C-alpha cells in the first residue's frame, strides 16, 4: 500500500493521546486505591488531559487530509458516522470525537475540581473515576476500531491478524505512557518511576507483538496469485500491459514506490526508534529523573512510530497489485 501521511499522523497522534489518557487514568485508579499519592487535579490531571486532547485533536486534524477534499468536512463528513453498524472506519469516526469529548470532560472535571460522592464511599474523585472508566472503554473501542480498519480487510493478509489490534493498542499505550513519564518528570517527578515502569513494560510488550507480526508477515503465503487473479492455470504467467502507461489510481494508491532495500531500512529504523532508544532512555531517565532523556525517549518513540506506520502500510501487499505490476 502507498502510505498516506494523513493516516500515519492520525493513527500515531491519537495513539499517543489515548495512551496518555490511559496513563493518567491508571494513575488516578492507583491513587483511588491508595497505592500512590494523590495528584493535584488541576496541575496534573487537567494539564495531562489537555496534553492528550492536543494529540487527539491533532489526529483528528490529520484525518481531514485523508478526505478527498478538506471541504468535505463541512459538506458531507457528518455522514461518515452513519455506517457504524458495518464499517470500522465509521466506528472510528464515531469514537474519535467521543473520546475527545470524554477526555475533555475528564480534564474539565479535574480542572473544575468537581466532586460528587456517587457511591457513598470514601474515595475522592468519584465523578472523574466514573467518567474515566467510561472514557477508558471508549479509548479501547477506538483502538480496536482503528486497528480493525486494517485488520478487517481479509485479503490484506499482512494486516488481517489480531496482532494488528494488539500492535495498535500496545504501541499507542506505550507511546502514551512514555509521554506520561516525561510529563511526570516535568510536573510530578515522584511519578516518573510509576509511568516509566509501565512505559518500559508496554514498550516491551509492543516489541513482542510487533516482532511477532514482522515474523508472521515475513512468512506469509499470499492466497491470491496471478493464476487466481485472471483465472488461468499455468505456472508461467507474465503481465505485459496494464491497460494504461502513464499510471492510474491503481498504480499510485497501492504501492509504496520504493525499493525493497529502502523498506528494510525503514524496518530497522523503526525498531531502533520505537523500541531500542526509548527503552534505554527510559531506563536511564527513570534513574536520573532527567526530563531531557525522558522527553527524548518520547520523541524517539513518536518519530519511530511514524516510520513504523509507514512500514505498516508499505509492507501490506494488496492483491490488486497482481493486476498492476507497473509494467
Amino acid at each position, binding site marked *: 500500500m502507498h502510505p498516506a501521511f494523513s493516516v500515519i499522523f492520525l493513527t500515531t497522534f491519537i495513539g499517543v493521546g489515548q495512551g496518555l489518557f490511559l496513563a493518567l487514568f491508571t494513575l488516578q485508579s492507583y491513587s483511588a486505591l491508595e497505592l500512590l499519592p494523590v495528584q493535584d487535579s488541576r496541575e496534573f490531571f487537567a494539564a495531562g488531559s489537555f496534553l492528550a486532547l492536543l494529540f487527539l485533536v491533532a489526529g483528528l486534524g490529520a484525518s481531514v487530509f485523508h478526505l478527498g477534499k478538506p471541504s468535505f468536512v463541512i459538506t458531507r463528513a457528518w455522514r461518515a458516522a452513519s455506517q457504524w453498524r458495518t464499517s470500522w472506519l465509521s466506528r472510528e469516526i464515531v469514537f474519535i470525537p467521543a473520546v475527545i469529548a470524554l477526555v475533555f470532560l475528564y480534564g474539565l472535571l479535574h480542572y473544575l475540581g468537581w466532586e460528587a460522592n456517587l457511591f457513598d464511599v470514601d474515595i475522592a474523585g468519584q465523578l472523574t473515576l466514573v467518567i474515566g472508566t467510561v472514557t477508558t472503554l471508549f479509548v479501547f473501542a477506538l483502538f480496536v476500531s482503528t486497528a480493525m480498519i486494517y485488520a478487517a480487510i481479509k485479503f490484506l493478509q499482512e494486516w488481517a491478524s489480531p496482532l494488528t489490534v494488539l500492535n495498535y493498542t500496545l504501541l499507542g499505550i506505550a507511546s502514551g505512557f512514555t509521554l506520561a513519564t516525561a510529563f511526570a518528570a516535568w510536573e510530578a517527578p515522584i511519578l516518573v518511576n510509576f509511568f516509566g515502569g509501565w512505559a518500559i513494560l508496554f514498550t516491551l510488550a509492543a516489541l513482542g507483538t510487533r516482532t511477532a507480526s514482522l515474523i508472521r508477515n515475513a512468512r506469509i503465503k499470499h492466497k491470491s496469485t496471478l493464476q487466481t487473479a485472471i483465472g488461468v492455470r499455468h505456472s508461467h504467467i507474465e503481465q505485459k500491459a496494464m491497460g494504461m*502507461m502513464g499510471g492510474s489510481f491503481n498504480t499510485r494508491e497501492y504501492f509504496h514506490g520504493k525499493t525493497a532495500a529502502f523498506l528494510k531500512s525503514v524496518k530497522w529504523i523503526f525498531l531502533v526508534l520505537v523500541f531500542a532508544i526509548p527503552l534505554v532512555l527510559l531506563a536511564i531517565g527513570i534513574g536520573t529523573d532527567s526530563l531531557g532523556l525522558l522527553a527524548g525517549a518520547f520523541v524517539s518513540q513518536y518519530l519511530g512510530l511514524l516510520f513504523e506506520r509507514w512500514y505498516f502500510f508499505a509492507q501490506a501487499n494488496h492483491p490488486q497489485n497482481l493486476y498492476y505490476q507497473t509494467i
Partner: protein
Amino acid sequence: MSDKAKSATEGRTEVKNTTCYMCACRCGIRVTTRGGEVRYIQGNPDHPLNKGVICAKGSSGIMKQYSPARLTRPLKRKPGTDRGDAQFEPISWDEAYGILEERLAHIRETDPKKFALFTGRDQMQALTGLFAKNFGTPNYAAHGGFCSVNMAAGMIYTIGGSFWEFGGPDLDRAKLFVMIGTAEDHHSNPMKMALSKFKRNGGRFISVNPVRTGYSAIADEWVPIKPGTDGALMLALTHEIIKTGLYDREFLIQYSNAAELVNLNEESPEHGMFVRFEVPPEEGCFDPQNKLWWDRELNKPISTHTPGADPYLLGDFRLSDGTPVKPSFQLLKERVEEYTPEWAADITGIPAETIRRLAHEMGITARDEKIELPIAWTDTWGNEHKSVTGNPVAFHAMRGLAAHSNGFHTIRAMSILMSILGTIDRPGGFRHKAPFPRPIPPCPKTPRGPEDVRAGEPLNGMPLGWPADPDDLFVDDKGQPVRIDKAFSWEHPLSVHGLMHNVITNAWRGDPYSIDTLLIFMSNMSWNSSMNTDKVRKMLNDKDENGEYKIPFLIVADAFQSEMVAYADLVLPDTSYLERHDVMSMLDRPISEFEGPVDSVRIPVVPPKGECKPFQEVLIELGSRLKLPPFTHEDGSRKFRDYPDFITNFETAPGSGIGFLAGWRGKGGEKSIRGEPNPNQWEMYAKNNCVFQHELPKSYQYMRNWNQGYLQWAQEHGMTRYAEPINVHIYSEVLQKFRLAAQGKTQGKQPPDNLRRRIDLFFDPLPFYFEPLESQLSDKQAYPLNAITQRPMAMYHSWDSQNAWLRQIHTYNFLHLHPKTAEAAGIQDGGWMWVESMHGQVRCMARYSEAVEPGTVWTWNAIGKAAGAWNLDAKANEAQQGFLLNHVIAEELPAHDAGKHLSNSDPVTGQAGWYDVRVRVYPAGPDEEQVSWPQFKPMPQVPGTGERRPWLNYFAGMFEKKSG
C-alpha cells in the same frame, strides 16, 4: 455531477448518422451532440459494415474533435526561417488560394509534371486522381505503395480480387481460417466481428505470424514464422497439397488456367505463353477463351471448356507441329518439387511436421467438409449449375506478407494455394466485394511515354493503372521512368499504387528530374510514413548551391500539427471527419459486402473548427480556378458550387449515369448504381444511415469470376467493361511477357541493360521463394535479427497520439524481444537498449516477450513522436520514451549490380520493404541518457492550434466553456 454539468445536460440534443474515420475501416456511426458538443459516438446498429459495434478509436472521436493539435488556419512559413523550424504566420484562404493558383497555373502551362500530388490514407483517390490527371501531371499516387500494394497486386494479378475492401474470408461458413501476417488494423471491426462469430461456431483458427498479439491471441494455434519467409511456407504447403492430391481438380480445370497448355519451345517467341488456337477477333483487357487443354479421352489438344472435355492437369505433351507443351499445373508441380516441408522448415522456422499437418488440415477440410447451397446459377460457358458449392477454408493476410520485397511472389503463392484448394468466390472461402472481381489485370492504364504529359493538357491516361505487358509501361524511349517515383518503369513495372516512399528522395536528388511543387495531403512524410526518416527530414530542408530548396515548394494539407507540417511552406488546415462531406465511392474503395455493392457518405455533424476547409473543397476550388475540364463549363466558368454539388452532379462521362455515389440516382432517387444525377441524393443518404446497399440476387453472389448473370449485371451497371470469365492465373502470362522482353525475345519495349537480369529473374510466371532483397544485401552475421512493426488496435498509425484518451493506452513503445535473445545480448527487461541496422540506430526500451519468434524484434508502429509534434509537450512520453523504428530502415537498397539507387521495395510492384530490415541489438551504456534517440529540436506550437490544457474534464455541452 456539478450544477454546471447538470445545466449542461439540459442542452439541446441532436443525433446524426455519418461514417467513422478514426481509421480506414469506415464504420457507420451515430453521433449524439448536446449543446453543440459531441456527447457520444456509437456504432450505427443499422449499418451493414459494423452493425452497431465500434472500436476504441471510434469511441475516442471526441478527443480527436477537440484535440489541441487541430490546425485551424492556413499558414505560411515565415520568411527567413528554415523548414522544420515550424515558424509560421497565419494567412487568409484568399491569400492561400492566390499563392496556389499562381504557382500551379504556371506549372500547368509550362511543365505539369513539376507538380506532384501525393496523399495518405485519404479515401478520396477518385477525386485526387481526377484532379491530378486533369492537371496533367503523372506524379500522383496515394499511400498504397508503402502500405500494402503487394496484397492488391499479387492477388488481383492472380484471382482478380484482393483482401480488405475488395474481398475477404467468408467466416460465416468457413471451417478453417488461416490468418497470415495480419496487423490488427487490417481489417478492423468487420474482422473482429467475423472472428468471434467464427470461433463461436466452432471454426478452427490458425494464425501464422512472428508475433502473437491481437487477432493471433485468440487463434486456436499460433504458428510463429520468421519474417519474410511466408512465401516458403505457401510453396511448401502447395507442394504437400499437390503431392497428396488434396487439391480441387474440378475447380482448377474449370476456373483457372491450370489445365491450359504452355508452349515450352525455347526457340519460339511464344515460349512460356499459352498455346492459342486462334487469334481473338477482339482485343481487350480480358482473357480470350482461345487456349488449349489436353483431353484425357481423345488424348489430344482440345479447346478449353469444350463441353464434355476432361483435360489432364499433369503431363508432358507434344502438339502435332512438334511443339512441346505442358499444362501449367504441371509446371507448378515441377516448380514446387524442391519446396518440400523440410526445405521450408529451415527457412521459416516452422517444423516440417507442422507444415505437413497444416497442408493436410487445409486439404482435408476443403475436400471433406464441402458446402452445398441450393442456389442455381449459370457459368459464362452456359453450363447450368443446380447449386453453389464451396470448400470451407478461408485465408486472410495483409502487411506481414506484403511489406517484404518478396511479397508479390509470396502473395501470388498464397493466392494459388487458395485456388488449388478451390476457395475462390465460393462459400466458406474467399469472396469478392463489388466492384471486384475485375479482369486480370484490370483495364485502366497509365500513359506510355513522356509525350503523354503535355503542357496545359490533361494527362493522356490514368495516373495509376494496371500494366498488362511491357508496352503498358510509362517510360521514355530509353526505358527510363517518366514519373518522379519511377512507378510503372522497369525498376518496378507493376507498381500499381505508385512509390510514394521514394518521392522525396527522388525529387531531392533530381532523379529522374527535379520538381517544383510537392503537395502532400494527410501523410506524415517527415516521420512515420517515410523510411530513413532522419535523412528525409534533412532532404526536405536541403538547398542547392543557389540557396534554393531542392524541393522548391512544399504544401501540406492536414488536420493536425503533424511532424510533416513543420516542413511546409504552405499549410492548408483540413477539417475533422465530423465536419465534412465525404464519399466512400464505388469509383474508389467502397465498403461493399460479399452480397453486393455498398457505398456510404459522411455528412457534417458539427461545423468546421476555425477556418478549416475540407481538402475536397480545396481541390474543387483549385480545379475551378485552374479551369481543369471536369470542374469547368465549356465557357470556362465554374461548374460546381462545392464538393457536395460536385458529388451530386459529376458523371464519369457525360450522360454515363455513373457518379461517385451509386445510391438514389435518377431524378427522383428511383435508380441504383446507374442513373442521372439526383439533386436530393445527399438528403436521401442522410435519411438512410448514410449508406447505400444493393443486395445482388443469391445466384449472383458466388463464383462471380465465371458467373454469367453476375458478369452481365456488372457490365450493365458499369462495374466492368467486359462480361468475360476471369480465370484464375495459376500461371501468369503477364509476368512471362515481361520476362520475354528481358530476354530480348519481344519486339516491344525493352528494359535497360542494368535491369534485364532483375526483370528476367523476378518476372517468373510461377511463384518462387527468394530471400528479401535487403536481407540478401545485408551482413546477416552482423545483423542477425529481423525487425518489424505491429499496429495496435487502439491507435491508427500516427493519428492518435494527440488523442487524450488513446494516448493513455499507448503512451510510448518498447522493443519487444524474446528473453533469450535479450539475455544473449545482455539487455534487461525494461532496460534501455540500442537497435541498429546497417543504415542507422535507435535507442529504445526493451520489453521481454514469450510471444515473439526469437529471431524477431518488434514494436508498435508510430507511437514514438518527434518532440512537440501533434501539439504534445516536448517532455511527453511519446518523444522521450517512444521511438520510431523507421530510422533504421532505408528507402533505397545498397548499391548493387541492378542499380545505385533502387528503391527498397518489391522489384515487381514497388511495395516498400518495411519488414526486410536486419538489425542487431545491444544494451545502452549505464551512463547514457535514459531517453530515446534520435531526438529532434522540439516543434513549437503553430498558430491556430489549441491551448494545451493541463487537465481535462470533458463534459459535452460545457467542455469548451470550462476546462483546464
